[in-house]
């Protein structure tokens, strides 16, 4: 056996073991912590598969932000999971059977993919047209040029999710005041995170990075602020926050419509402009994604949310 395969096999085995541990843990808190570890390990696996974009996104969003959201949900809920103990034997058997069937299916698909006849892969197509896309990172080219439609819809999904969070109710109180050491860390960590987000956004044009990674990093800065006792978590209030939330989707849509008006198809960039247009969209998307993620972490409307104008205020009082 090839010896260099050993670390990869170890990684894959640990991944499966952790996934099993997450699903099987009786304590919800332990499950969440294991889930965060699972996300970090998955990020390493992505990096091993030469997909640093996905590794970045997985570490920031999959492990970091999802973990933070799950921990908040755990804090708000009762904590214990009594229902899991009452799972019937039949239920367990069905779940086991389902997992077995799914495993076989996935294994079969993997087998087919590995040993299939070589076909023209999408990656080759993406690389072939790279020069005309306005950026030199194929992942960004796919996300914001070839498949801009998908990314637009993804931003809409993020917006819809955060609207759902806002409907649920008011935000929870932040954590209590942390110790002085954490305060010291926050004072240099938050600026560092903001600079990193800017770097990821800019570098996305020609290397791994981009709007989603930058947005998640900015959101991490917001969450750190919130944990340090700044309840607003760096977000503005009222009208500005609303604009921030819709900026990504709005700019994307407006540019797409503008292209339709000026003669091209929907989201078909003029070739000379595509680089700058992609950058504009990415900046707006980064701001929106960060705002949405931080708002999701805050868990609802703040007091300032309603104070947009008198009309809204009256409506809230009368309802």
């Amino acid at each position, binding site marked *: 056996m090839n010896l260099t395969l050993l670390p990869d096999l170890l990684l894959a085995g640990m991944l499966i073991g952790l996934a099993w541990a997450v699903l099987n843990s009786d304590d919800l808190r332990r499950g969440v912590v294991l889930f965060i570890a699972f996300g970090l390990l998955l990020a390493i696996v992505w990096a091993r598969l030469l997909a640093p974009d996905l590794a970045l996104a997985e570490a920031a969003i999959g492990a970091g932000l999802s973990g933070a959201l799950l921990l908040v949900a755990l804090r708000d809920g009762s904590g214990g999971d009594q229902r899991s103990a009452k799972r019937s034997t039949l239920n367990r058997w069905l779940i086991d059977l389902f997992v077995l069937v799914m495993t076989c299916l996935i294994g079969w698909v993997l087998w087919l993919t590995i040993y299939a006849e070589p076909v023209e892969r999408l990656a080759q197509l993406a690389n072939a047209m790279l020069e005309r896309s306005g950026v030199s990172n194929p992942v960004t080219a796919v996300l914001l040029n070839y498949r801009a439609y998908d990314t637009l819809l993804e931003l809409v999904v993020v917006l819809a999710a955060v609207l759902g969070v806002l409907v649920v109710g008011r935000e929870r109180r932040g954590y*209590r005041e*942390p*110790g002085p*050491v*954490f305060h*010291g*860390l926050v004072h240099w*960590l938050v600026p560092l995170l903001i600079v990193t987000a800017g770097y990821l956004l800019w570098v996305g044009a020609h290397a791994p990075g981009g709007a989603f990674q930058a947005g998640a990093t900015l959101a991490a800065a917001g969450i750190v602020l919130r944990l340090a006792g700044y309840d607003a978590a760096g977000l503005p209030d009222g009208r500005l926050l609303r604009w921030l939330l819709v900026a990504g989707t709005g700019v994307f849509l407006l540019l797409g419509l503008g292209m339709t008006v000026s003669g091209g198809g929907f989201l078909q960039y003029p070739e000379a402009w595509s680089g700058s247009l992609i950058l504009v969209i990415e900046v707006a998307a980064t701001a929106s994604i960060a705002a949405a993620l931080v708002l999701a972490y805050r868990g609802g409307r703040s007091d300032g949310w309603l104070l947009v104008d008198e009309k809204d205020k009256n409506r809230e009082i009368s309802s």
Partner: protein
Amino acid sequence: MIIDILSSILLLVGAALGIVGGIGIHRFPDFYTRLHAIGITDTLSALMILLGLALQAGWSIAAFKLAMIFVFLFFTSPTASHALAYAAQHSGLKPKLDQK
């Protein structure tokens, strides 16, 4: 040659300290002592491994990145340990004392 030996010593010591920390987390009786075990893994073990890798990398951008990682760890891990201990103490967790 000397660099190779030096870096492998550093890497081995770092790995050994990591294992010691791991054993500590499993074997120590309560939260605060486990935190002490994590401290070894977080600081000294990480420092040894990063130093060993930096020796292998030589004067390059990789060594600079490793140095940045070390600076980052140097600030974040003590803060994390402190935050954990602070939170535990705040919520009333008492250290387990010898009861005879």
